[in-house]
């Protein structure tokens, strides 16, 4: 599902990632952890092609991401559901529209898109906020909308960047349970987090990034 070979990323000669070699099999649940600035978000950005690596190879779903041209990117991004740390919701669209927009991109008919979006919102306890605009939502609610958007079309790969950052413990547990369900149905899940409680909540493979290299690869706690 995901393969990184000799992956390097530098900003202004400052090396963030140093020769990463990682292989994630389809259907795996993987945590990516490390201190702030360790390169977790950068690694995720390289996976959904928001950044280009300085050197090395990035493979996702047997597609060479680092060599992709502009016209291939939408196709790659439609194979994955990304939960962004800063939510990245469309301000001028309602909660429901934010989700149906993505479903429509996948060719889902309007009525079916509305139905699926509603069901996903209901699953995340946000159905009563479907007509609200993102600015009217709390941080936690915005995060749940971002999660709903990433999960609505049941992608085979989910990348989550600090998905529980704005959620209380109860909601965070619910979200992790949701991600586990999706993983159980066959989707690959990669969660970037620095929350140790979260790492301990699920016995999953954990990659620890430190100073741009994988310092530990195994179940948590080490």
């Amino acid at each position, binding site marked *: 599902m995901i393969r990184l070979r000799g992956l390097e990323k530098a900003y202004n000669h400052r090396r963030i990632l140093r020769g990463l070699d990682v292989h994630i099999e389809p259907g795996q649940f993987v945590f990516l952890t490390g201190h702030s600035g360790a390169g977790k978000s950068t690694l995720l950005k390289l996976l*959904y092609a*928001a950044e280009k690596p300085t050197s090395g190879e990035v493979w996702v779903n047997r597609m060479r991401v680092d060599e992709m*041209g*502009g*016209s291939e*990117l*939408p*196709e*790659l*991004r*439609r194979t994955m559901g*990304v939960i*962004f740390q800063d939510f*990245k*919701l*469309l*301000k*001028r669209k309602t909660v429901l529209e934010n989700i149906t*927009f*993505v479903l*429509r*991109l*996948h060719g889902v008919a*309007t009525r079916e898109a509305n139905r699926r979006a509603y069901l996903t919102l209901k699953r995340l306890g946000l159905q009563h906020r479907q007509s609200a605009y993102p600015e009217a939502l709390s941080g936690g609610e915005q995060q749940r909308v971002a999660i709903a*958007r990433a999960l609505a079309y049941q992608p085979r790969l989910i990348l989550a960047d600090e998905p529980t950052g704005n959620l209380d413990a109860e909601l965070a547990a619910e979200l992790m349970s949701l991600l586990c369900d999706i993983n159980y149905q066959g989707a690959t899940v990669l969660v970037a987090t620095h929350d140790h409680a979260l790492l301990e909540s699920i016995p999953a493979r954990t990659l620890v990034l430190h100073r741009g290299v994988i310092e530990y690869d195994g179940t948590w706690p080490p």
Partner: protein
Amino acid sequence: MIRHAIFEGILLLRGRTWATLSLAIALAVPVAVGGTALTFGLWAAPLLRGSGGAVTVEVLLRPQRAAPEVDAWLKAQRRKHPDWRIRVVPAADLSRRLSRWFPYLRPLLEAEGTGFVPSLVEVTTARPEAVNALKRDSGVLAVGPTTSLHRSLERTSARLRWLVGITTAILLLSAGLLAGIWIHLELYRHADEIAIMRLVGATESTVRGPFLFAVLVTGTVSGISACGMNLLFARWLSGLLLSLGLPAIRTSWAVLALQILVAVGVPLLVATITLARHAALEIES
């Protein structure tokens, strides 16, 4: 995604009403100038072709002359000058021209009819100076200018052709540039949303759709306005031309369609280029 393009496009237009209107006017003016010049050119071309270098001189006969006398005079002139093409302007036509040239004569013309109107004769010849000799004819009241209106028209058309062509091109270029700047500003204003759309897998057609729709609407409004300006100008000019004894201007459907096509096509082309450049820069960065 068409619904998305229309919905978002309307939002774009609503968010920038004045800028959109300015753009529509900036586009309508050059298209109207070009279209009107084309209409005028299409109107003048057959007239200029038909003149074949000949000049039409108007000759006004004395009003006291009876119809048989006029006929005899015409016969004599045709015999004497077989190369002249002589046409008597119908009294009703002359009456109409007089009422246009001298509006204060209108009540008199309406009350008295065409009975008192003198006979006007049009002599078409390659040697207009020869017509001047008629000034000495006792039956002739006056001889009009020997420089043909057609020739003046030809000269004016030749001068205007380049002037209008270059002016239209410059104005169209400016309007295109304005459309590009408008798109650029809107892209800048919606940069965050566009970036998010791309991140969640939106294709370029989804991202560009609303902008293209907004430009399509603006272009259509400009095209329709330009057609309106063209028709109004043609109507005004027709009144003037009729008073000179020339046929009225008719704006052809082809010219109107061409105006709409240019008004829509130019901003669409500029928008397509601007959006493609923006996408390329975005992906590069």
